């Protein structure tokens, strides 16, 4: 399994557990998650987001077989071109993570478009978490809305050659992003952690509308329990071949990873159940 939505470090507004490399790996082992795309949680609220990339770089280097680096950059902040180069060339990061609301820019801003283009030229995927936490529980210091689906639609349209991963989102099925034949390039995939499988079954709708190649497994750990995403896959009414694509195949393709043979990269210990 590949989790495209994982984090190391601290978040300014809530204490996180399992947020060191060892802690996250232990959690991944217990849940049989082989690899994770990991970015800095601290970068969300650092003024200079790149400081968070630097903080996790050594951990990523030590665990390159399991933790895949994802750079958090702010195209409205000085020096992002240098930081992108460092993240890609020195830290070996395979993807870029954007927080347009937390970092106060729009995905369609010229500087953001340029960042997406430069990261794409480097072969990096572009990941966009629609939210960090539920707005109802945000601190009195902030009032950060989710990234609007229409803004994301404009961004994917403007960069058809880029590969986008949309995470921590819901309501896609009712927006242009989740509609069949929506006129958008098929250059984005949607991560499952906040999608429903029961009742409205948004995940099922997206599989039907976008196809089985455009849904990816992710948890949001350690912000989130990983188990809800695992439960979704358990009860999803889909063939095993489709579930396998969601668990790992689609993420591997988008992140350009080699999938290991089942015996080659096992979790370090057996899970308890």
């Amino acid at each position, binding site marked *: 399994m590949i989790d495209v939505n994982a984090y190391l470090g601290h978040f300014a507004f*809530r*204490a*996180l*557990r*399992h947020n060191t490399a060892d802690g996250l790996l232990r959690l991944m082992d217990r849940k049989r998650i082989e690899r994770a795309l990991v970015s800095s949680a601290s970068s969300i609220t650092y003024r200079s987001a790149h400081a968070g990339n630097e903080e996790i770089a050594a951990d990523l280097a030590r665990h390159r077989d399991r933790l895949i680096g994802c750079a958090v950059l702010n195209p409205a902040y000085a020096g992002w071109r240098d930081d992108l180069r460092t993240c890609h060339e020195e830290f070996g990061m395979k993807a870029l993570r954007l927080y347009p609301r937390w970092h106060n820019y729009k995905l369609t801003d010229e500087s953001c478009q340029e960042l997406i283009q430069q990261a794409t030229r480097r072969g990096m995927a572009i990941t966009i978490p629609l939210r960090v*936490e*539920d707005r*109802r*529980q*945000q*601190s*009195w210091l902030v*009032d950060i809305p989710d990234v609007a689906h229409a803004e994301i639609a404009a961004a994917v349209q403007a960069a058809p050659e880029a590969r986008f991963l949309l995470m921590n989102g819901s309501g896609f099925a009712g927006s242009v992003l989740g509609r069949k034949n929506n006129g958008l390039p098929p250059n984005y995939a949607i991560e499952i*952690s*906040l999608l*429903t*499988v*029961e*009742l409205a*079954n948004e995940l099922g709708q997206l599989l039907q509308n976008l196809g089985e190649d455009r849904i990816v497994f992710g948890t*949001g*750990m*350690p*912000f*989130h*329990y*990983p*188990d*809800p*995403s*695992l*439960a*979704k896959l*358990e*009860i999803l*009414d889909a063939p*095993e071949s489709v579930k396998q694509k969601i668990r790992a195949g689609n993420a591997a393709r988008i992140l350009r990873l080699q999938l290991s043979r089942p015996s080659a990269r096992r979790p370090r210990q057996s899970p308890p*159940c």
Partner: protein
Amino acid sequence: MPIPRRAFLGSLSLAALPLPAAAGPVIDAHSHLHHRGRPTWREDDRKLIDAADKLGIAQLCCSILPPERPTSLDGFRECNQWLAEAIARFPKRILGYCFVNPGFVKEARDEVRRCVEDRGFIGVKLYNDYRCTEPVVFPLVELCIELKIPILHHAGHTMWLPQPQPRISDGGDFAELAKRYPEATLICAHICGGGDWEWTLKALRNAPTVYLDTSGSVIDEGVVERAVRTLGADRLLFACDMSMTASVGRIRGAEIPESDRAKILGGNMAKILGKRSGR
């Protein structure tokens, strides 16, 4: 491969989750059936039961809420009638909370008594028509004490101003109500759908007669462990409030003793239900 429906029905106990087989049935302490103004209500109710089957939930404690606020007298009577019919359609799967607007003081009390004594409902559900500390609510609380039934109350605490639900109750309000009525069985709803859950846990810490349901769509890691540490496992009730995989997942994922997990998943709610039945 999908598990056959019959196999699920045969395993509707804690054993359906990785839990001790000797424990009792999993009870969702906070759920809803659909208002019949929704054209697909029958199919949607069926989907709820199907999801419960797949996730190993044996019983769902449900209410039906009308969409309008403030809630009208006809509105809540109609919903309770539909719920009584649903209980007959899904015997032993659906348990009923009588939903009322406490502002209709006499009529609400009459409706609760009728639903509990004649229709076998197991409790009362209140929403945000009034804050739970407003005196208009007290006669209803006193009736619930007499009938030995719980009150499941909508709740939330956000830092936003202005508050989108001006009469929503929060953990502090329940603590205050519990001080006035320590013999009442109060359930504070959806810790994972009611804003700042850390605030709510602290507000409820010293109100030992208030239970907390674990439902909601927020899947923040650590919430269940923190709730167990702050309130104790005896005060927590597994619930989904329709967010089924989120709610099952957070209990599965919580790093707590299996004995605590069993209490949360059904043991504590079974005790609450036993107060009226004398079990």
